[in-house]
Structure formats: C-alpha cells, structure tokens
C-alpha cells in the first residue's frame, strides 16, 4: 500500500521522464534533440518557459557538449540530468566514460534507438549496449510508470556518497517514449523529499585536508588530471569497488520508494514472472517483457510451465539473482534487441550464459536476436520461441544456438 496519495496522468514514456526530472529539482539540464528522445527536452523546455522549474536549461549544440556540461555541472555541485538516444549516445561515448571516471553523478535517460547505418529512428538496444562497459549503472524500464519511478530513484542512487556513479535509465524508443499510459505520479514535494539535496563525500586535497568533492574556490581540487601507468589502474579499480556498493544502494532506494508508492519492480535488479514452477523461460530487457507476460499467461492456460525473467539492472549485473531465479529452468531463450556482429550471439546472451556457467544447474540456452530497428515483436513469434524451448527441454537438443526472430532470411 502506498503511503501517499498519487495522481494518475496520461503520459508517454518521454513525458514521464521529463516530469520525474522536473520533480527531482534538477539544477542543470543540458540536452540536444534527437528522436525519439526529443519529447523529453521539449517538455522540459516548456517547464522552463512557464517558470515551473528553477533549472538552468542549456540547449547545447551537440550531445557531446550536453553530457560534458552535465558532467562539469555535477562536479561543480549541481544535480544534473540529460537525455539522448542512438547517434546522440554514440557521439557522447567519450564523455560517457569520462563522466563515470570523474565520478560525476549524472542521470541520463536513453530512449533506446537503433544505430546507423542504415539510419533508423526506431527502437533497439544497440545504443546502450555500446556503453555497457563505461562504468554507468544501467536501469531498463518495462513501461512508462517504471520509467518515471526509475528516474526519481536514479538521482538517489547516482548521488549516494558511497557510489558517485552515473545512472542511465533506458526506455524503449516509441514503444515507451511515444505511447500513452496511465502513470501514477507523486506530489512534487514528496519527490523532493525523497530525492533530497546533494551530499558531498570528503576527499583529500593536495595539502592533506579533507574537503567536499566538488569544485569550490575556497577548497580547490584538481579534477580530471593525467594519470600515468602508476595510478590509472588503481583509479579504474576504484570504480569497480564503488560499483560493488551499487546493489545495496539500488535495493535500498527501490524499497524505500516502494514503501512510499506501493510500486515494486521485482527485487529491484530482476523482475521474474511466473518463474516459481517454470520449466522454460525467456530473459529480456525492456518493453518486450509486457508482450511476453501475455504469452506466458496464455501458455499457462495450456498447461505449459512458462515464465519470464526481465533484467532491470543490467549494470551492475545481478549475477546471483539471475542464477537463483533460473535455478529450475530446463530451457532458456535469451532475447537480444541488439546484435554483436560476429560475436556468436547478442550481448545479453553473452552475459546470461556467462552468469549461468557457474550455476549449480544450467539450462539449455538459445539466443534470439529480435526487433532490430523497431521491428515488431508480436505474440506469435514469442509463442514459437516458447514452443522451441518446450521441444529443447524434452529432447535436450539445441539445433541452432543463435537465431534471428522476425527477420526475412
């Protein structure tokens, strides 16, 4: 049960993101338009134009500068937010790494879209997958409601003094960004209270003094210096150490938010559906989970023990949660909305197979690359995948490890 009264608004995913950023009392938004993220910057510009926010909105000349400005704004002490997609994220790539390396707690919404060429404005996950090793936390939303909730949670996670790690909230382009849903929203003051004000951990300056980690003229720090081989490795290792704190913080923030709103997303890392007694299952990210749940329900009426595991936190990878959730599965299909060309499977497949390698019991595994460039994923195709899984679970025979679903071949 929710502690606070909430309002239901008709919002698409992008609008939900913009509203969440607005309510989180963001100091600086720096962004650049790109489909299908554009609604976020348009909506935020309206808030600014109507005096509904106190935010400094910087409409940059590129995504590279947008993320740069968020990065230095965050280092100066501000709460910073941006949003992008596809080519925009690819253009940011350099600064995606720098933001994580500088430990700047920026929150970024990525309205997932295919990468060129050919140019395509529709959904797939290749943009965010190209950033998976960058040091950002990645949260993947299933619907607009979760997008809204995750952006609010993201500020608390990113800015946590033990973590100071940027967070990327992913939402499927068009499927979520442009589709109206009923979204329950909190009152402004509740969000502000939940998110709070930024806290700065103490670091040691060159004089040996403990000073807050921000650019402050009376307590000067040098941020983003040159590391030679004698220090770079340790600093990159520190990012890994910080990331190891993330699960605890992601869960705490999720649970506290759940108490406030009544909304939970699995255990905050993975969201299982009808897995308790399932023998076959799929693993996926994002909005396809919604369609898949419908298929699972239907299969259940036919007596087929099907389930689904949606990964919500892809970084850090919730290894043990995945192992635990899939312990009884006989045959598993990993659904990849992006491909690693020449990599013998998509990135999610690589990671799930890696994760399950050390599990006590391992299911048979197959990989489906689906939905590239916005290709629809209708229930019929998903049904066929479960049909194949059923077959594999009975025969123990995997005919093809990696397949493309819904493509003309």
């Amino acid at each position, binding site marked *: 049960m929710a502690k606070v009264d909430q309002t239901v608004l008709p919002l698409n995913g992008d609008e939900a993101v913009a509203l969440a950023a607005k309510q989180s009392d963001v*100091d*600086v938004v*720096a962004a650049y338009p790109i489909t299908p993220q554009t609604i976020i910057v348009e909506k935020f510009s309206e808030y600014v134009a109507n005096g509904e926010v*106190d*935010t*400094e909105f*910087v*409409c*940059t*000349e*590129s995504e*590279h*500068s947008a993320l*740069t*400005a*968020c*990065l*230095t*704004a*965050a*280092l*100066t*002490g*501000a709460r*910073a937010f941006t949003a992008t997609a596809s080519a925009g994220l690819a253009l940011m790539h*350099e*600064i995606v790494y*720098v933001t994580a390396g*500088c430990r700047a707690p920026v929150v970024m919404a990525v309205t997932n879209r295919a990468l060129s060429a050919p140019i395509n404005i529709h959904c797939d996950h290749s943009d965010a997958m190209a950033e998976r090793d960058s040091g950002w936390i990645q949260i993947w939303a299933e619907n607009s409601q979760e997008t809204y909730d995750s952006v609010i949670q993201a500020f608390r996670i990113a800015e946590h003094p033990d973590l100071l790690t940027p967070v990327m909230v992913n939402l499927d382009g068009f499927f979520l960004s442009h589709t109206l849903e009923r979204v329950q929203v909190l009152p402004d003051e509740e969000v502000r209270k939940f998110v709070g*004000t930024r806290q700065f951990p103490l670091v040691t300056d*060159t004089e040996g003094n403990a000073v807050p980690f921000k*650019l*402050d*003229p*009376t*307590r*000067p*720090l*040098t*941020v*983003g*210096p*040159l*590391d*030679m081989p004698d*220090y770079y490795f340790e600093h990159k290792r520190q990012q890994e150490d910080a990331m190891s704190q993330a699960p605890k913080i992601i869960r705490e923030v999720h649970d506290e938010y759940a108490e406030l709103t009544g909304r939970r997303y699995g255990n905050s890392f993975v969201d299982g559906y009808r897995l308790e007694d399932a023998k076959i299952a799929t693993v996926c990210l994002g909005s396809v989970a919604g369609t898949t749940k419908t298929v699972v329900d239907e299969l259940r009426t036919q007596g087929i023990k099907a389930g689904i595991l949606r990964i919500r936190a892809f970084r850090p990878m919730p290894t043990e949660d995945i192992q635990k959730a899939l312990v009884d599965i006989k045959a598993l299909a990993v659904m990849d909305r992006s491909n690693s060309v020449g990599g013998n499977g998509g990135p999610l497949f690589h990671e799930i197979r890696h994760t399950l390698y050390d599990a006590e019991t391992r299911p048979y595994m197959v990989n489906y690359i689906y939905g590239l460039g916005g290709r629809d994923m209708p229930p019929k195709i998903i049904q066929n995948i479960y049909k194949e899984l059923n077959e594999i679970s009975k025969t123990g025979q995997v005919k093809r490890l990696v397949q493309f679903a819904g493509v003309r071949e």
Partner: protein
Amino acid sequence: MVTIKELAEKPELFTSGHRACAGCGPAIALRYIMKALRGPTIVTEATGCMEVVSTIYPYTAWKVPWVHTAFENAAANASGIEAALKAMQRKNRLGYEHVDVIALAGDGGTYDIGIQALSGAAERGHDFLYVLYDNEGYMNTGIQRSGGTPHGASTTTSPAGSVIPGKVQYKKPIAEIMVAHEIPYVGTASIGYWLDVIAKVQKGLDAKGPAFLHLFAPCPRGWRSETSKTVEIARLAVETCIFPLWEVVDGEYALSPQSKAIALRPEKKKPVAEYLKTQRRFAHLFTPRFEYVVKEIQDDVDKHWNQLLQKCNITVSVPLKN
C-alpha cells in the same frame, strides 16, 4: 592599472614545479592569467600541453579549482560550470556572490577539434572567459600542424620536403571568427607584453557574457627556437605585425598600444624575415628553392594588417597589395 610590484605580491595560483619544457610560452601565459584573477574562480582546461604538464597525478600546479574532461570540449566544460553556478546561486546554495569561469585550450583544442563547442557556448551567451593559448601546433603529441599553424611552418604532419615548403595553408582567423559571434569581448595578446595580457584577462573577466582572448605563446620545442628567446619572439611577432594586438569591445575594433605605435609610425614595422629567422621550423624558407614563401608570408601579413587598420579606423599607411 596594475603594477609589477602589486603583481609580485599576488599569490602564484599556477605554481612552479610543473613539467613544462624550458622556455615554454604557454606556461608563462598561465602564470600571467592567474595573476589577473579578480576573485573566486574555477578553471577548466582542454587536453593539451598545459593540462599534461600541470596535473600529473598525484601532483597539481593549480591552487584554484580546476577540471579537465576531454580535448574538444573546454567551452562545454565552462558552460556546465557556469550553468551550475547560476542555478545554485538562484537556489541560495552557492555560497559566493560570484565565481568567474575560465576555459583554457591550445590551438588544436580551439581552431580544430574544439571550435564547435566554443561556437555553441558563445552563441548561448555563457558568462565565461575563453583563453586560447596559441603555440601554433599540436606540440604535446609531437609537433603536428593545426588550423593555427602558420603558412610555411614545418611540422611533423606538414614537413618541409623537397617539393612542399611546410604548411601550405594559412592560419585560420580564429579571433575574427569569434568577433563574428558578436560576443562582448574579443582580444589578442602576446606573452611578450605581460601588462597587456593581464589587462585583457581582466577585461575578459569583467565582460558580461562570453569573452575570448587569443594569447600568442611561442613553443621553443615545436618552433625549434632558443629557449631563452621565447619572450623576444613573442614581441617580434607583434613588431612584424604577424600577430597584431587588438581588441573588439561590444563590436568596436581598437588597436592595442604596441600595435598602435606601429600603425602611427609604419617605419617601425619590421620585416617578417626577422621573425622567421628566429625559428628553425622556418629554416627551409631561407633556401633558394623556398625563398618565395617568405614573400608570400610578408604579403599575407601586409594584407591582414591593412585590413585591421581599416577596421580600427586608422588611415591605411601601406598600400594594399594584390
């Protein structure tokens, strides 16, 4: 006007112990810039010589908050810092009445890879001073040509060969490009004249909105000049009108005293060869095969000098050459 005694008493905010080469012009530039501060300041810097030599972890030469993120984005760094300062001040969380923001970048980080971010930040009107320290090449990576490398200079990517006499192209008119952005302040300065540099940094900081200072700073390593001659060469560039000193304040051009003296007494204008001879990057121009390039350079300098005099409303003292 500030005196040298007063300056000597001001703390060194860009301190000694950094790893710049002997005779480094940009290091002199940074010392002057930091002597010109008027209050709380945050400095951001593009990747480049001065970033590399001043912040090798765990050491830093900076006694002000300083941040580096990448090569092409010094102006975007400044945009984010300035936006954060404004937002935090509005929300009473800043703790300062005002904080100045200075972005530093070399010629590679300005003429070439950084021009997009710079143009965007200027168009948006952020309140910051951008100082381009121009040592006319990618010196940190081993002396490659940039959009700021002058005509005829030999670099590792525009080497003087048996056929091609060094860099074929001319210097991009970067300060004029910034004037075209119609920002409140654009100036050129040379580290040969410390008082002028400091006065212009202060004007840039005082300007409300984006200010751009093009600061000429010789690089003995890249220019293959004597390390003891850096300041002399920086003055020769002005005395030959290769690098005239001027300002545009709210759209009005004005020559600075050193260049104005030459405008009023044209006989004081030295031939470019005097400057070129101080640097071995131009040595090939003094061989029979390539000596025509010296004339090309002289003609180009004369043309731009005369154009500048017109912009400053000074009667053209030398006839325009075609």
